[in-house]
């Protein structure tokens, strides 16, 4: 009898012991590994940014942060995976500028509104790269030549309707030049586009400075203007579009950490606080500056507004170019 009761209480104790951590889980988030989804492949700029953020966040939260690549479909697959995950704080993602582009093209229903915005971590403005031996000494000379010979000069650096395609198209329409006078040659990213620029296949690559920096340093390409309010710290000789041609045109690729929609405030605040420490850390700053990446901070609702504004600007350009559906 005693024996049986002992067995019984032992069994209850064992069951309780096993389930205790599960019950306690609600109290102290996070108590298990966090997954950080990257919508782009291993090896790209977004991937390496996510990995440094992941490893620093891991130190802040005391739980492993596993970086997981979900690639394909120009970012549609990965962005969907982030939005579709449970909003429990254990699945986060790094959203990129493409979230404000693909829904205009009719590729997905997803928009920035399907996420809980956490923090903006980086922004890289576009710049107008041409071959080092190109005849144009500045941006006005290039624009005049484009006006005189529409369709002659081709540009490349992303896929059809990608961010750099919109960067050049938006600049041209801002200057009242027909965007289609510079036909777009789709490529798998900035590196093949730049390679083609040097090989003489295309004339213009409107990608960001960090993507072009090694060829800029090697003196194989030159940059005529950068599409931001301020000059790039690493290349202070390159003028802004406003300085070069008198028209303010800014467009850049950004990256930020988001969670699925409906993340509770407690988790959200905790993650923003941890990400703030990551952003302010010496490791993050030096990693980004050595890569040549720009840093830009916004958190919570502010980041949400940033995504909204970005979405509207991109939608406008895409309608002008005829890419929006």
């Amino acid at each position, binding site marked *: 009898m005693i024996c049986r009761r002992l067995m019984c209480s032992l069994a209850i104790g064992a069951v309780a012991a096993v389930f205790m951590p599960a019950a306690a889980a609600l109290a102290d988030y996070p108590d298990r590994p966090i997954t950080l989804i990257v919508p782009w492949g291993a*090896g790209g700029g977004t991937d390496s940014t996510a990995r440094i953020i992941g490893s620093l966040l891991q130190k802040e939260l005391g739980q492993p942060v596993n970086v997981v690549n979900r690639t394909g*479909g120009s970012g*549609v697959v990965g962005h*969907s995976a982030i939005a579709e995950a449970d909003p429990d704080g254990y699945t986060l993602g790094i959203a990129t500028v493409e979230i404000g582009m693909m829904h205009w093209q009719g590729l997905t229903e997803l928009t920035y509104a399907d996420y809980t915005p956490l923090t903006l971590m980086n922004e890289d403005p576009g710049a107008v790269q041409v071959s080092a031996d190109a005849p144009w000494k500045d941006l006005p000379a290039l624009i005049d030549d484009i006006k005189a010979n529409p369709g002659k000069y081709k540009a*490349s650096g992303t896929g059809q309707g990608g961010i750099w395609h919109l960067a050049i198209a938006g600049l041209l329409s801002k200057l009242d030049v027909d965007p289609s006078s510079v036909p*777009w*040659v789709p490529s798998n990213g900035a590196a093949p586009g730049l390679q083609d620029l040097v090989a003489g296949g295309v004339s213009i690559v409107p990608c960001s400075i960090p993507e072009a920096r090694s060829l800029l340093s090697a003196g194989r390409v030159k940059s005529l203007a950068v599409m931001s309010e301020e000059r790039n710290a690493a290349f202070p000789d390159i003028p802004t579009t406003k300085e070069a041609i008198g028209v303010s045109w800014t467009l850049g690729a950004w990256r930020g950490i988001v969670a699925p929609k409906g993340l509770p405030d407690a988790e959200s605040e905790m993650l923003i606080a941890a990400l703030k420490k990551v952003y302010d850390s010496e490791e993050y700053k030096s990693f980004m500056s050595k890569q040549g990446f720009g840093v830009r901070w916004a958190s919570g609702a502010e980041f949400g507004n940033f995504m909204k504004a970005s979405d509207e600007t991109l939608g406008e350009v895409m309608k002008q170019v005829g890419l929006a559906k």
Partner: protein
Amino acid sequence: MSAIEAAFGLILHWNVLVTIIAAAIFGLFVGAIPGLTATMAIALLVPVTFFMDPVPAVGAMVTCSAMAIFAGDIPGTLLRIPGTPASAAYADEAFRMTQKGEAERALGANLLFSAIGGLFGTIVLMFSAPWLAEIALKFSSFEYFWMALLGLTCAAFIGASAPVKGLVSLLIGLFVATIGLNNPAGVPRFSFGNTNLMGGIDFISAMIGLFAVSEVLRTVAGGARPAPMVQASIGNLFKGWGRLFKTYWRQQLRGNILGTAIGVLPGAGADIAAWVAYAISRRFSKTPEKFGKGHLEGIVESTSANNSALAGAWVPALVFGIPGDSITAVVIGVLYVKGLNPGPTLFLNDPQMIYAVFLVFILANLIMIPFGWGAIKLAKQILRVPSKVLMPVILAFCIVGAFATNNTVFNVSVMLVFGVLGFIMEENDVPIAPCILGIVLGPMLEQNFVTSMIKADGSFLGFFERPIAASLGVVTLLIWGSSFLSYLIARKRGAHGSDSRAISHDATNP
């Protein structure tokens, strides 16, 4: 001279050597599991290298990638599950050697020629990187189009025993490559509005399905009866190497040169190199009839080519910061973080650093030999496991591997569909290897064709206007023309007698 001494000083530290050895073991482990790629191994190393000095950081990455690519040959040879598309070209051939009981001989040769290939590529990298990078920068979409077409032409040669069926396989692969959003126009094709299909078919999951799952299905169908696969142990792997080297030095050299040349071009890489090398080896062999039945010659040339291509990919990466493949793309990022900014100045400003990197390359290819030897001896034990136990476990690995390629069960579905497809194809003598090449090269072919047409304003002449493009184009057309001509001649000659299959077989193996 002092720079070289300083470089040796940087390398010969216990922490550098320990890091390299740990990375070697990690690379072997990851590379030997189908579905886990060298790129993934490197990406996992990135956060670790943040906290290292530059030399061990780069050393770890170089060693890890070299090991992972070699290790991809191990499951390819033992189980016919190629670890990477670069080993897919000769996985079937190597597996046939295993069936003949020559697994150790095949793997030993793989190891030797992989290491030599890597060393050859490194030497080229050391002495002519800046000069080669200049040539690589002359390649535009016109040249890449011809390269891709040349690669596909080679696949047609590989499936030469029944050219039509080889072509069918290739075309199925090309069709699969069109699925999804990753095309120059950026519109979804054949995706039924499904988000996962929009992402396209992942070729690694497809490869696991075509090669491994089809094999599992075939074995299971036969009830997994014990097949006689007694392995001849050659004991000391190093013993036969002198003779191998003597017999196959021509193939080895040809493979090395071809591999380095193709590897230097950003985006072409080890995959094409291996296929082209295999085709060339068959074309110029004195005994082409032995190919496809477990013959070492083609394996030697192909494996020499893919490992030297790996080193070749570093040429544009180090000189211009243009990644040759996804592995170098990751490493370029790490180089920047470590203050070793790629570019011509890297060779001038930091000579001891760049020499140290070269020394790591050499070291990585040298330690590949003892470590690879250990891995082969260990992995060979797999063949002792009866297939009634082995096949279920392989199926488990396939599922996990396919899942790991993009961390979704969708890729397990892809694997299953291709497993069934591969099974049906092989039952009907349709070779599966060309299908993989089609999936890998399809996007490259289409991308470069469409972008070339945009650049040339819709004129086909653009493909012959640039000197390198014109020569590549003429070579491709000549190969097509001569194959077609010899087919016609053989057909005319054989019209009186034997059946058409034998004729077409002769036609492509003159």
